[in-house]
């Protein structure tokens, strides 16, 4: 009954509800678009993003992959070091050059520590500060490494699938180039060199087609709902204001002293009725 009564009251004020719908539509547009006036333009605030992933294997020139005699433990440790190195500014600038992107547009996070207590897993204030600074970056890299395997997994995020694949592909290339340079500088014998092998091509896809419609709908419903909720008490206040004017400025506490027959709105009559019912029930 209360819903029906509320809907009926809103129907009587349908022009104001219409105005609320207009305001809600404007709020919905502003929630998902940046509106430019000169020249008139709409830029989406939500980002479509795609991801791609690939893996790289830290190996020996003769490949310990197939040779049971080769101990892979030293390679596990190196993979851990490389995974951390890849999140460093030096590595990011190399990756950015390889992917033909500006270095400051890329945000990278190193491997997450798995074998530590839960309390120590969460980021500290210092780490969060760094993460917050990089939250706006459209190109993102995340590296994962299992401490018992010589493999680094690369996850790349970019505004399109092609860019995500390019970014993921750039990582092993950049790392290989960096290590080759060091090996050449230090004149390390060929059989003692670490080799970076990419385990297949990077694959990816679009993850999120954008949230414009969902957010805009949500904002529209909420703004219109709140407008309608406020409309009824606002009308009551406005009516009370008019009543005070009609009474020559007098004020009846809780409306109980006003006379419904006199003000013509029925409010005083209904309040008196409630009081009357109360007395009768006693």
């Amino acid at each position, binding site marked *: 009954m209360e*819903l029906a*009564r509320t809907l009926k009251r809103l129907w009587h004020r349908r022009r104001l509800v219409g105005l609320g719908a207009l305001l809600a539509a404007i709020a919905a547009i502003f929630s998902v678009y940046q509106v430019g006036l000169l020249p008139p333009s709409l830029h989406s605030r939500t980002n479509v993003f795609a991801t791609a992933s690939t893996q790289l294997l830290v190996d020996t020139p003769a490949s310990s992959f197939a040779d049971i005699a080769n101990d892979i433990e030293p390679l596990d440790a190196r993979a851990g070091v490389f995974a951390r190195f890849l999140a460093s500014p030096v590595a990011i600038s190399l990756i950015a050059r390889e992917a033909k992107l500006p270095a400051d547009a890329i945000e990278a996070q190193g491997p997450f520590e798995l074998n530590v207590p839960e309390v120590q897993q969460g980021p500290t204030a210092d780490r969060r500060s760094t993460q917050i600074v990089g*939250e706006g*970056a459209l190109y993102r890299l995340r590296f994962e490494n299992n401490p018992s395997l010589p493999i680094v997994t690369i996850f790349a995020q970019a505004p399109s699938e092609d860019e995500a694949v390019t970014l993921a592909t750039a990582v092993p290339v950049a790392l290989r180039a960096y290590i080759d340079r060091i090996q050449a500088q230090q004149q390390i014998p060929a059989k003692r060199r670490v080799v970076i092998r990419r385990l297949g091509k990077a694959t990816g896809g679009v993850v999120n087609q954008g949230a414009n419609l*969902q*957010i805009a709908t949500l904002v529209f419903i909420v703004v219109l709902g*709140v407008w309608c909720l406020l409309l009824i008490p606002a009308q009551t206040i406005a009516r009370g204001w008019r009543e005070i004017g009609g009474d020559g400025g007098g004020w009846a506490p809780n409306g109980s002293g006003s006379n419904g027959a006199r003000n013509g709105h029925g*409010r005083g009559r209904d309040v008196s009725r409630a009081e009357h*019912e109360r007395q009768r029930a006693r």
Partner: protein
Amino acid sequence: MEAKALPLDGPSGVDAWPRTRRPLPWLIAAFLASIFLLPVDGIHPKVSLPFSSDFDRFFVAVIVAAWAMGSLFARRQRIVRLRSRGWAAATIAFLLIAVTSIAINIDRITNLGEWEVAQKRLAVLIALGALFAVVALTLRVAELRPFAVLIVVLATITGLGTVYEKQTGNNVFYDTAAKVFAPVAEVDPSPTEINPAWDRGRPTITGPTRHGLSVTSILSMALPFALVLAATATRTRRRLLWIAAACIIVTGALATQRKSGAVIPAFVLLTLFALRPRQLLRLAPYGVIALALALAVAPGVFSSVQEFGHADSRTSTAGRTTDYPAIVPDLLSHPLLGRGYGTLDSERADTYRVLDNEYLGEVFQVGGLGLLAFLAMIVTPLFVVRSVLQSDSPMRGPPALAAAAGCLAFGVACGLYDILSFPQAPYLFLIMAAMCVCAASVEVPAGETVVEDPRAAYAAATS
């Protein structure tokens, strides 16, 4: 002492649950039963709907649809219920702030891939708000006591099931749900683990929930109902029955071996003693006997209390204290409206901490304004119901007192873990908040005219 403005008990005793054919109270009772007996967040219907189709949200959607249909097509009611001013203001404000926080941060949220999880959490929040509104609009004063009895009965069953789980390792709630819902839904496996490896910490005893703290919360929130019913029982046999129920509920909470299992019930007891000392003191001798019996028969039941000095417990406390400095950068970068409701995804442990405190979680997600609205949401039912807390009317006073203590227990539990991550306790809290609103409402015969201004009428009727 009688309250200054005792609302009318009204003529609502005629058609009241359980002696009613109105479908809504039955649906609400069924939902309450599902909170206490089913892993509501672990049941996934095998149907694909355009909106979130998890069991609890599906159930709430059915309740809201039934209410809307009833409101639009029902005959004119014989009574009009007048509710206290602003009874839903805090909930609406919190919902509004939650949506605003997401809308403002949407560019960052989508960029970090957090929209999916935020969307799910928002759907739960909307379901919570809708349930609160429908229950507050539906319940009648004469239905408060039967619902209080229902809560105690359900909590007693949950308590027994949790104790059984601790003893045997079998989670009857998950097992039964898996069998019953097999044709229509998939049920997650039970997280129960009574003998964990030495490095896995405490046993996992969860009852119908996903976490021991969650079952502890719902049992603790139900405890005041059992105590109040015991305190107001006129016959000794009834009183003993309610005390036995209270003991089972406390035992169930302690069986989870969480500190909260001792902290929240203790807080509930203190609250009730503070509000109605004379009535509750009557129960003291029974309490002493129950305690002595428990110590003699099953001393292990108090292992939760021993948890205070346990090494694992100290680690948990250290984890809580390290949360405070760790979230400072986020608070400083988004002080007013936070990072966006529902974006604190504890699955992403490399980015976000598991904040063992809902208040911290709220200030992190919805900022200072959101935290204020969240606090207001907890306090509003207490503020609304204050006029009937001391009432001797058996239909209003005892259920109001129990519901208010239950809401306070929720407020305490919020300080102990991320309570909104598990839906049972928030659903129960909002049902109790709705009971508070109902207890303070005024029921007047509708007569031939409709009350045009319910707020003024409520003020007049309670003045």
